[in-house]
């Protein structure tokens, strides 16, 4: 590496900033809790006992390392670069989310907090939070927009089975952003005994940093597995971006190696020309929401806009601040896949590889298929298959006109 590599820098800065993004834009009551969390985390991130506990659960509870799998038939179908899948869908609870909830539940435990709260859109983070709450004996409350409660009934039931209380949120657009508002309101009221497990690499400092750190096990494993299985590092990384935690987890260890291209795939919804999408990096502009400055979908008056995506997990008007920085410095490319492209990719991967991806991850697969076709056959793309599609079967069945 050359010494003046602009990407070989340690972010965020002490105040949680990634370039102009990130920071800690919260009402005063929460500041002390965030300062305490930052202090505790700064100590624990290098603490061998904490790291050992984290690694142990990742290995024996989550089932890591997750495989890096060569999707041979999908590759043939696209006729270009090799497509490899990082199989986060095989994790316990079926998605990458659990890497983070294990880490944050351990933090809660080390901080002596007995109650945890979480926000959830599709329900994956809610399930992952309820799961670790059961595992660590913590009381768990999950905030979920009433629209999402309706369209993700199975996950709601899962959370209840795991002993969590699901709070249906009826304010605003009744989706993920409103669930996050309500979780913040609950936290401000119960800040003394409650730990807030944020589900993505966004929110006030130190959340974007600590979620990234917990998720970056994905990228580190890919580095090792690529060396072992392919004999070299990939040419391109592809991951879907809602809040962006699976993407930053894959990207982070690679940021300082600019020869590896990175593609974050946002939810293009019905297309980027209208406003029925959830693609703040592609179409939004920087603003402040949920404790951080980042690219947002907002109207001309700074009001946050409703979003649309076929996948509830990408249906969010903001994005993690580190992605906003990676966009500003042109280190990562942010692109979009539409609902239809994601659905098509879902069917392709299911039929060609026998792997049913989550609709979120299907966006990444969709873009990787396009990208692969433009690259030579000796090139390598690693796609983060962030979750499995079981939870989406009803959505897909309904779209295909199948009634169970």
């Amino acid at each position, binding site marked *: 590496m050359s010494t003046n590599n602009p990407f070989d820098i340690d972010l965020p800065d002490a*105040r949680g900033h990634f370039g102009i993004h990130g*920071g*800690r*834009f*919260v*009402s*005063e*009551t*929460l*500041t*002390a*809790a965030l*300062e305490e969390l930052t202090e505790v985390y700064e100590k624990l991130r290098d603490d061998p006992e904490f790291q050992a506990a984290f690694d142990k659960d990742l290995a024996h509870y989550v089932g890591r390392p997750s495989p890096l799998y060569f999707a041979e038939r999908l590759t043939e179908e696209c006729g270009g670069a090799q497509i490899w899948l990082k199989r986060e869908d095989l994790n316990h609870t079926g998605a990458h989310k659990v890497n983070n909830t294990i880490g944050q539940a351990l933090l809660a435990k080390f901080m002596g907090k007995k109650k945890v709260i979480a926000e959830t859109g599709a329900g994956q983070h809610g399930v992952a939070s309820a799961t670790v709450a059961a595992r660590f004996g913590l009381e768990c409350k999950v905030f979920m927009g009433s629209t999402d409660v309706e369209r993700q009934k199975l996950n709601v039931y899962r959370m209840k089975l795991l002993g969590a209380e699901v709070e249906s949120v009826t*304010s*605003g657009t009744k989706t993920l*952003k*409103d669930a996050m*508002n309500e979780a*913040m*309101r609950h936290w*401000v*009221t*119960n*800040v*003394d005994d409650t730990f807030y497990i944020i589900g993505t690499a966004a929110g006030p400092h130190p959340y974007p940093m600590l979620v990234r750190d917990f998720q970056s096990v994905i990228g580190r494993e890919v580095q090792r597995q690529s060396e072992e299985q392919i004999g070299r590092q990939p040419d391109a990384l592809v991951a879907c971006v809602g809040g962006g935690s699976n993407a930053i987890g894959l990207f982070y260890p690679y940021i300082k190696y600019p020869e590896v291209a990175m593609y974050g795939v946002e939810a293009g919804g019905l297309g980027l020309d209208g406003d029925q999408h959830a693609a703040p990096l592609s179409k939004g502009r*920087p*603003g*402040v*929401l*949920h*404790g951080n*400055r980042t690219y*947002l979908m*907002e109207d*001309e*008056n*700074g*009001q*946050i806009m409703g979003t649309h995506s076929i996948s509830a997990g990408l249906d969010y008007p903001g994005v993690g601040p580190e992605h906003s920085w990676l966009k500003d410095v042109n280190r990562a490319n942010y692109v979009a896949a539409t609902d239809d492209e994601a659905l098509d990719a879902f069917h392709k991967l299911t039929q060609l590889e026998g792997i049913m991806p989550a609709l979120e991850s299907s966006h990444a697969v969709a873009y990787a298929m396009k990208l692969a076709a433009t690259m030579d056959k000796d090139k390598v793309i690693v796609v983060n298959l962030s979750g499995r599609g079981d939870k989406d079967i009803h959505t897909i069945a309904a779209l295909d006109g199948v009634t169970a």
Partner: protein
Amino acid sequence: MSRIKTAFATLEAAGKKALIPYITAGDPQKEATVPMMHALVAAGADLIELGVPFSDPMADGPTIQLACERALAHNTSLRDVLPMVAEFRKTDNNTPVVLMGYLNPVERMGYEAFAETAVAAGVDGVLMVDLPPEEAVDVADFFKTRDLDMIYLIAPTTTDARIEAIGKAGSGYVYYVSLKGVTGSKALDVDDVARNLDRIRKHVSIPVGVGFGISNGETAAAVSKVCDGVIVGSAIVNLIATNAEDSAAAQQAVSALVNSMRTALDA
């Protein structure tokens, strides 16, 4: 001297405490706001906190969330709120007006453009709940150079070191959030407020207003013993909500509440 400074100085000279009502601009209609501001003053308000509607009011309870939703239903934006203040100023050049809300509408308008327009409209101070002093360092000059007061929150959880920093960064007054919770919460503990005010006074020389959980004259009077002003939001906004169809009835109900609080404060 700024209107806010003058107002607190006049009150102090008279041995009185400030009564600071909050309403959300554009709730329930844009036309209702300026007449309601005048009604508040007539009923005994010393300073008005005018809420700028935001789609995601994270620090607010259901009452003010719904007020924002009512105001946003007919698109009341920051661009509408500033002319309301200008309109109010045509007949009231004394009562300070503080804009209260969230950062993003200001961020979208641009700090300099906002500060410029706000001053021209007759705004005296700005309180953005999700802009703590640390994040304001880069933009505070846009406000300071135009004598717009930056009003910051202090919470029960705020450390002494931060209280000191906030006391230095803020001007006009500081807003002490009486409890851990959102606006419209019920359980204000007067003794707890008194203890924290002792702590705050050690580091803060500007006036201290107390808000959250103050909904009647009795609580207002009790809290006012230890601070310089009381802020009343959700109790007023509730009356506006229940009289949303009838602006005369809303003004009457709000005036009666503000008046009873004025009487209790001055007793």
